[in-house]
């Protein structure tokens, strides 16, 4: 300790509060800084003009009406799964099983489409698809919730494992229901008859999905912030002892919330199989169950902000994909850019939570 006379260069303290526009200023600056760093990295590593890279990212999402629709559809699906996992997160129930819950939803829809196609009228089949897919998701969510409520098992591991069970289940039935025979895949279900396909409205294939998710978003917002259930969820998440003290039945709330969470994931599965893809594969959910965790956290569990965060993530991943094809770059380069941007966005939260005071500034402030 021979440098004891030196004062620390800076020290860090927790902020009491911050004005909302300053928070957004910090976030905006973070994105700007991320773009600058991305530009430097691309110039140094590829020699390409950074502006052409940016414009490629932009046109990947907004280049044509079709691309915009695809963008909106992708946002809707990611948002749907994110909304689904959010009530559980508010309860501090770390549901990372959105992937599996959505996949069993896909599975239930596909089962209805395949098994009932000649037996029931189309409207009835679609109705049953809604019911069974949401039920399947709810069951997939309720199992880990039940074990957590009764015996305090770890929900993160449990929900994660349930994903693999769902994947294996679907892998098995992909072979049972394979079409054509010997392919080991299901292919497009009911290609000719279109039985069990959700109706196309307004001439836009994706419009129905987008509208359903928009309604779901408003519902979740209301449910979390204005309903009695939402309040119970928040209390249970903060303190089970307090919940018990005011007569909230903690076990019931955990199971109920996870059933809702699972049912919403199942609905996402229905939209994927019944409306977007008309098929069933083990990878149909495409990692959205995991990306949803990030969407929900970045938006601080607020369903309306989640529109923004899911847009950001979809926009970045589409842009990254486009760069790798247009410039003949490795897909990894696109991942590097996405990583840089996320690093800056998540890192900026530190400056929102904490204040960094430098030596000179600190001394001035004391005198002021």
């Amino acid at each position, binding site marked *: 300790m021979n440098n004891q006379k030196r004062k620390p260069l800076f020290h860090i303290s927790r902020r009491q509060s911050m004005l909302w526009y300053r928070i957004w200023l910090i976030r905006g600056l973070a994105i700007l800084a991320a773009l600058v760093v991305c530009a430097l990295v691309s110039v140094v590593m590829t020699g390409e003009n950074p502006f052409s890279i940016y414009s490629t990212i932009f046109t990947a999402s907004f280049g044509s009406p079709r691309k915009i629709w695809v963008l909106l559809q992708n946002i809707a699906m990611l948002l749907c799964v994110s909304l689904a996992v959010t009530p559980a997160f508010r309860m501090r129930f770390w549901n990372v099983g959105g992937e599996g819950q959505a996949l069993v939803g896909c599975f239930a829809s596909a089962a209805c489409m395949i098994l009932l196609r000649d037996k029931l009228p189309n409207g009835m089949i679609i109705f049953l698809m809604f019911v069974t897919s949401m039920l399947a998701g709810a069951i997939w969510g309720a199992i880990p919730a039940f074990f957590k409520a009764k015996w305090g098992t770890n929900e993160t591991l449990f929900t994660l494992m349930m994903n693999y069970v769902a994947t294996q289940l679907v892998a098995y039935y992909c072979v049972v229901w394979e079409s054509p025979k010997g392919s080991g895949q299901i292919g497009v279900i009911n290609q000719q008859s279109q039985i069990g396909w959700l109706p196309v409205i307004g001439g836009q294939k994706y419009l129905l999905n987008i509208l359903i998710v928009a309604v779901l978003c408003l519902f979740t917002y209301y449910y979390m912030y*204005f309903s009695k259930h939402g*309040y119970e969820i928040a209390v249970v998440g*903060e303190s089970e002892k307090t919940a018990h*003290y005011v007569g909230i039945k903690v076990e019931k709330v955990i199971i109920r919330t996870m059933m809702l969470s699972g049912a919403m994931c199942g609905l996402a599965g229905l939209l994927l199989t019944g409306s977007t893809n008309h098929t069933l594969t083990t990878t149909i959910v495409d990692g959205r169950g995991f990306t949803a965790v990030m969407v929900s956290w970045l938006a601080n569990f607020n369903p309306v902000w989640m529109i923004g965060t899911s847009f950001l993530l979809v926009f970045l991943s589409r842009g990254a994909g486009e760069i790798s094809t247009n410039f003949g770059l490795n897909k990894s380069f696109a991942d590097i850019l996405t990583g840089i941007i996320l690093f800056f966005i998540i890192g900026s939260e530190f400056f929102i939570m904490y204040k960094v005071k430098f030596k000179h500034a600190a001394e001035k402030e004391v005198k002021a």
Partner: protein
Amino acid sequence: MENRIPAVSMHNVSKRFGTILANDKVDLEIYRGEILAILGENGSGKTTLMNMLSGIYYPDEGEIRIDGRPVIIRSPKEAFDLGIGMIHQHFKLVDVLTAAENITLGLEGRLNLKDVSRKIREICDTYGFQVNPDQKVYDMSVSQKQTVEIVKVLYRGADILILDEPTAVLTPQETDRLFAVLRNMREDGKAIVIITHKMHEVKSLSDRVAILRKGQYVMSVPTRGTDEQEMTDLMVGHAVKLNIDRPEPVNPRLKIDVRDLTVRNIDGIVRLDHVSFTANSGEILGIAGVSGSGQKELLEAIAGLQPVESGSISFVEDDGTREELVGKDPLEITKMGVSLSFVPEDRLGMGLVANMDLTDNMMLRTFRNGFTTVANRRVPRHIAEQVVNDLHVNTPGLNVPVRTLSGGNVQKVLVGREITSSPKVLLTAYAVRGLDINSSYTIYNLINEQKRKGVAVIYVGEDLDVLLEISDRIMVLCGGKVSGIVPGRGARKEEIGLMMSRVGGSSHE
């Protein structure tokens, strides 16, 4: 004595958090071979000041000298290097590790657990601790955990020890044991600082007392040359009347009738053993006993939070009809129309949600009202406004999380909420624990006000002087049994104290 060099001297030290000045140009000296008590109300900056010494906060202004040498303390590790160790109110131990592992955690060099155990035993023998180095922390009682914390700082060579309200979680016997150890350390020439607001501890333990008020250093006096009244006045800043009202009960009627109540805890140990008593409206029933004698279980059983093995708890309506409360959960009790309020011991962990704001905390009691699925926030906001105004809660607004309020204000919010529903029965557990004098008196007044309104109050307390002053009747618990129920007026402290250590009132020592 007068011209020795202080182990620590703080000069002109200030610290601010946002707009709040937590410490304002404080001067303080700490000597070796001396126990210094730092006394002050909640929020007077005692803990902040000591946190600057132990490297948790960095002062905005001022100078710290150790043995006359100016130093800069940037982290707890640097504080340790200077021989400063702090034992915090909330222990920082790893549950699944043993005492020895916790003590050596984070130390550099090779770990030889045999040597460690030997060194721990040496420390224990020197000062009279009892620690089993191989015991896991999750197996330990609160006082054992505290001992591990103290040994941890001694092991690292600390000779300036700071203890932040060390007795808040201890029973009287454990407190005595701790004090004996602290005295041994003083004889060994260590400098000891305890932060407290309990007068009798200051009197019995310390050599010198330093008083802080609203972040400012008032003065320090030798403990022998002062008394409780003077210390209180200095701490509060004006003369305080140290007695509590006890109005005569008006028209007392039977409200709660407990018969042969037996309760076992989760491990099957009997916590209440055939307890019988009554509580009347317009009366305060004080419950005395060493902590852990079954007070918590008793209140929780009445509130419907604790499974009961046998016995009955009846709520008696004004017209004489009885409602059985055993076997009902809190929701069922409310639905039966029994208006019962409970101020639990664990305020932020049970009575309130620490991260929620005032409105949402008021809502805990009201959110079920109304037939729609929408939770009404207008009513709780109104209640919150009322509580803040009526009880003078010091808060920047209704939208701040309750954890940011000081202890006294947290308790006002909790008590305020519980009495808003005009209960017939009010259960309070350690209602003034951790509160300073002013806040304590506010709470006593609120409880007396409820009594005047005809509420049956059951008051579990730890301070015998207060129990003797406030209660109409006092029930003494010992080891889960009732060792006696005596009238509050005229009861003597020695008598109650004896009953507290006499199981079931059966044996006379």
